[in-house]
């Protein structure tokens, strides 16, 4: 009986969490796409500075990581392909797995670490220091002021970062291709491009947009639900990272399955 109650509690808790994320996302979406036509101007300046922070500043570390991931992918697939004497397929293996799966996913993970946690910490600290309360007493909606610019920045920047990550992954793979598999550089790139269909890239980008929405919703929700005290900010940040990673993988699974069944027809 106790077990059933506990399971019930976790399920309702989980559903309530989803509900809170969805409501936050909807409100932010309202201020982003409907609000401007109802006399609530968009804060483009804030969105751009967020985009700078979320996107441009992430480029160096993202490039490095995805370059290595591309190289690792090439090595791993070559290990198997070598047995069939099909080393030339390394290029397409890397290109397809980067743009369909690993590009969006690795980008999301890097962005969670850099920005999802930062959102939770920033908003959480503002909550603790009564800055959120101050916004409300000034009749400024915290979601409009803080969350919407972050959503806009993430929805635009995550696909951009993903494209960049795909390119860097392919570049990483080419290092192996050129040195070990007898490709010339241009030949490797051409083989990669030939292996890719537009569909592969687009599905990856759709996923990355969904990841962006998920990461922002979780980060901002955790920040806004921070309790009193500095230690709570740390807890919110941790929760934001853990929940984001889990939800990103879940969203990934749902969309990959969706694309699989749509593609199978």
């Amino acid at each position: 009986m106790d077990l059933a109650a506990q399971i019930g509690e976790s399920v309702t808790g989980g559903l309530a969490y989803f509900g809170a994320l969805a409501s936050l996302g909807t409100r932010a979406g309202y201020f982003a796409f409907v609000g401007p036509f109802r006399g609530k101007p968009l804060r483009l300046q804030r969105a751009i500075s967020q985009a700078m922070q979320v996107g441009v500043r992430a480029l160096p570390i993202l490039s490095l990581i995805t370059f290595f991931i591309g190289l690792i992918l090439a090595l791993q697939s070559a290990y198997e392909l070598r047995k069939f004497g099909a080393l030339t397929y390394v290029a397409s293996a890397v290109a397809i797995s980067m743009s369909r799966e690993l590009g969006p996913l690795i980008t999301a993970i890097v962005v969670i670490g850099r920005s999802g946690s930062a959102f939770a910490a920033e908003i959480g600290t503002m909550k603790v220091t009564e800055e959120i309360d101050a916004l409300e007493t000034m009749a400024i909606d915290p979601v409009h002021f803080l969350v919407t610019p972050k959503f806009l920045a993430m929805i635009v920047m995550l696909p951009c970062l993903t494209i960049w990550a795909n390119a860097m992954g392919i570049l990483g793979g080419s290092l192996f291709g050129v040195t070990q598999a007898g490709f010339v550089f241009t030949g490797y790139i051409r083989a990669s491009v030939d292996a890719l269909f537009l569909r592969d890239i687009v599905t990856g980008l759709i996923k990355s947009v969904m990841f962006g929405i998920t990461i922002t919703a979780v980060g901002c929700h955790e920040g806004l639900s921070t309790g009193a005290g500095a230690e709570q900010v740390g807890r919110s940040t941790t929760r934001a990272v853990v929940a984001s990673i889990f939800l990103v993988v879940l969203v990934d699974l749902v969309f990959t399955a969706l694309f699989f069944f749509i593609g199978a027809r």
Partner: protein
Amino acid sequence: MISLRELRVSYGEREILHGINFDVVRGETLVILGGSGSGKSTLLRTLVGLERPSSGEIWLKGKNLAAMSAMELDEIRKRIGMSFQGGALFGSMTVGENVALPLQEHTKLEDSTIEIILRLKLDQVGLAGFEDYMPSQLSGGMKKRAAVARALAMDPEILFFDEPSAGLDPIIAAGVDQLILDLKKAFHMTIVVVTHELASAFLIADRMVLIDKGYVVDIGTTEEMRSSTQPRVRQFLDRIAEPAVSQELDYLQMLTEDHHQAKR
């Protein structure tokens, strides 16, 4: 100006304020006194709409705050100013941007006009020339002054202060008290201050309310308060410590209550 009728506020199942009644008259400075955990901060948060009352009415300029939509509440909020305990300045913006924010959000004034207003407001609180400083570069007293400047930005009709002298040394605290007195004199503003600092309370108040355990103990002018014979008022004003265990039953109940809350 403000009327509270049977105001009750709860956090979850725990009721903090048990039926508060009093009025704030236009142009007066009302000090809400009370110890830690008395519910005075909750009362202030409810007055500015940060907490929703569980029952009762708050009449503010002829409208009931307790039964208001979010939109109406925002309209009211544009005409009140609130200075938070720690200042609550936005750390990522300069002092000037902090003060200018409500003007940029709610008015269609030109940037140059906003610039003039913010200099004026900063000058009023004695922070002229500090508009390009970041809040982290200011001392505690200056932060409070900057927060007052921000609260004044929209020329509010009512100004709320949460613990204006908390965490400040006596000289700086006296400065903040003087600032409140100056505002009162210059603008005839209605001011509501929450504090437990007796010295500053008696200096700035026209009238005082003593809140204890979620009830109004006494209300009156400073003289009435000083001569009050209410035991709880005397205890507060004469700074007499709480007896260790008031009643064994209460004590037992307190222990078991805590136990229940910890389990949840």
